[in-house]
């Protein structure tokens, strides 16, 4: 181990006389950003996510998603991220510069008179405050948009249980309802010492027996509640997450872009006990026509089932 740890580290990473070229860095960042957006967009265009991925995320960033809200969220996320990166470059740059330049071993003499400067302190209070305003304004606008659940065309009641979901359609679909639980294959494989390789199970832990079916191009409102403990309904590709409380109703809306029909997957996002990790959410987005057809089939199948229920 060298005598002075700080020194060899710095020497190795930054050659002598190294200067940070802002233009170089920003070019590099914009290239990265472009690549990321392109990747996310490509998977979004593909519509149905590949079987390997539960969503349109590239595996290390938020998914761009398939709703207006998820895409707005993605953009605001990236905006704030790059602002943070820019601040980090400046602040970490100043720190690293000090670590390199002002070393005792290099004969640096401390400037003990440098103890206070009202001017710089005011500057570095005001500038961050301005940056915050730049971030807060679009965020506030987006909040207003997210909270506007008026004029929804389909309303579905979502009830959470330990550890499954119940979906009940209202309006035209009144009477249609079912439970949605972890698919059998995943449920066998996830047992302790099951001996089944999770990689051999399609959509391991992200598959259910009966997915929620919704139409694309229509504003779908979910009314969430719970029968026992707090759960949370989350589909990353919709930018939609909301807690479900026992005894209370919270709401959420989704408007999937037409052309993005397909299967979207998510999980319960609030610790809800033993099988919290095993109550996935799967949404089957169909065209409005396809959805209407499906709903009509469900209603037709309903009558005998209801009779059976009465008999029981």
């Amino acid at each position, binding site marked *: *181990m060298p005598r002075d*740890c700080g020194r060899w580290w710095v020497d190795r990473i930054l050659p002598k006389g190294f200067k940070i070229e802002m233009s170089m860095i920003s070019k590099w960042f914009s290239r990265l950003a472009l690549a990321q957006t392109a990747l996310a967009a490509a998977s979004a265009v593909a519509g149905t996510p590949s079987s390997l991925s539960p969503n349109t995320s590239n595996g290390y*960033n938020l998914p761009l998603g398939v709703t207006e809200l998820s895409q707005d969220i993605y953009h605001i996320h990236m905006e*704030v991220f790059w602002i943070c990166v820019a*601040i*980090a470059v400046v602040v970490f740059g100043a*720190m690293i510069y000090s670590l390199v330049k002002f070393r005792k071993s290099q004969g640096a003499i401390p400037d003990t008179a440098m103890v206070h400067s009202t001017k710089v302190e005011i500057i570095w209070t005001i500038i961050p405050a301005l940056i915050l305003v730049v971030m807060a304004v679009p965020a506030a606008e987006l909040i207003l948009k997210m909270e506007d659940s008026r004029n929804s065309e389909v309303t579905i009641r979502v009830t959470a249980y330990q550890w499954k979901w119940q979906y009940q359609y209202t309006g035209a679909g009144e009477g249609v309802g079912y439970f949605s639980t972890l698919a059998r294959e995943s449920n066998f494989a996830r*047992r302790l010492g099951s001996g089944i390789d999770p990689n051999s199970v399609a959509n391991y832990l992200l598959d259910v027996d009966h997915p929620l079916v919704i139409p694309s191009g229509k504003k779908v409102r979910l009314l969430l509640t719970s029968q026992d403990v707090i759960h949370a309904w989350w589909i990353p590709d919709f930018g939609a997450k909301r807690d479900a409380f026992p005894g209370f109703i919270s709401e959420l809306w989704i408007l999937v872009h037409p052309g993005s029909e397909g299967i979207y997957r998510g999980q319960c996002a609030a610790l809800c006990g033993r099988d919290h990790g*095993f109550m996935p959410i799967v949404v089957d987005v169909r065209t409005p026509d396809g959805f209407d057809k499906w709903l009509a089939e469900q209603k037709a199948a309903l009558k005998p089932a209801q009779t059976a229920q009465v008999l029981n």
Partner: protein
Amino acid sequence: MAYASTAHDAHDDHHDQPVKGFKRWLYATNHKDIGTMYLVFAMIMFFVGGFMAMLIRAELFKPGLQLMQPEFFNQMTTNHALVMIFGAVMPAFVGLANWMIPLQVGAPDMALPRMNNLSFWILPFAFTLLLGTFFVPGGMPAGGWTMYPPLILQTGAAFPMLIFAVHLMGASSIMGAINVIVTILNMRTPAMTLLKMPLFAWTWLITAYLLIAVMPVLAGAVTMLLTDHFFGTSFFNAAGGGDPLMFEHIFWFFGHPEVYIMILPAFGIISEILPTFSRKPLFGATSMIYAVASIAFLSFIVWGHHMFADGMPMAAQLFFMMSTMLIAVPTGVKVFNWTATMWRGSLSFEPPMLFAIGFLFMFSIGGFSGLMLAIVPADFQYQNSYFVVAHFHYVLVPGAIFGIMAAVYYWLPKWTGVMYSMTLAKWHFWLSTVFVNVLFFPQHFLGLAGMPRRIPDYAVQFADWNMVSSIGGFGFGLSQLLFAYLVIRCMRGEGKKATAAVWDGAMQHGLEWTLPSPPPYHSFTTPPDLPHQVHL
């Protein structure tokens, strides 16, 4: 040095030495003995909580359940958090306060030594109660450290034990806080006006007020859980007119100041160490104090940001977003002041300085992700995902824990009178820094890609980063054995003798360096003058 010998001469003989045997510890009223016990206790709890973390990371090493049932996994996550927060970080800070505040403000001891004894000795009982739940029917609490009802009400026989353990921890913290406030306000040497007081004492003074303000709130919240469970009340039960959401409000009204309770003393420590090893006074010392005070104030009005996904009214979302973002301003001032402290200094890189620099960088990373989390619309994606796990571990591990380790490396030679091995301590720093990033950085990716937190098993596309994270976890855990080894060696008095000032450049930075190493049993028996070169 002059002060020390005066102190020594002026004092009765029989009080100068600690009594021998277990009575020294059981009946301890000396701030150094109690500080030592707090720190040793925190170290033990750090390894207990760390062991739980290792089990968690082992189960998450690859998809599928290999080692434990989901219920046991939930027990581990819950108790890892409780043990680390209430057993490791908080007692470590109280231990540091016990050791250092009398030394820094020129007092002979803490103001309330018997209460000091009680506040420590409550802790082993509290944690015996908490960890004892392992042996009761139903196992340990598994509802998360946040104890949200109704889930937490499903806990088995462990439930009342958990509640009483939390009560005890709260009582201990409140007593510790009272002691700090009384010591600082009443026993400061007259020459030391408040604005001349070292930053560690300042941050602790503010932290102590936070503790007194919020610990009773936590006690109230868990008492309501207790009566809901056993006495038929319905505080959090909708069927009886209550609201489970109310618990979240009450809990986070405690919980957010609690977050700052775990970081403000670390801010103070960093503000002590950077000037010493930059050989330059702290830049903007007064604005540092104001920054800490404003962070403390803001901590009371931001709790809602833990609950954005609950379906809050829009006005509340906007308010909590703005107030949370506002915290970035004083925090930014602190980071800038620290950077300015190093600027045009004369830096050397002894272990305390390395940990302080590590803190600066990695705490800032946690700060950036915190800023991102404040943005409500984006928070709908981040909430309860691994992104949050990455965020708070960045502020707590390379933040709070690195702060504590920096403090231990800084003051350990002062406490024990011997020097540890610089080389091994630097190894400890570099191993910890590398592994802590391998451990927590990939968790940002996992969260953004959609992995919820607190799940024992995950979909296969999360496998790669989880494996990387687990490897980092094992590496980080093992590296801490080095820390224990170094500390134990110093405690046994093995190593090179340390001088009074210990650090080249420390002499100007506080009264503690005017005493010999180790300092006399009663630190300052007459109020010292401030040597004129002492400044913040």
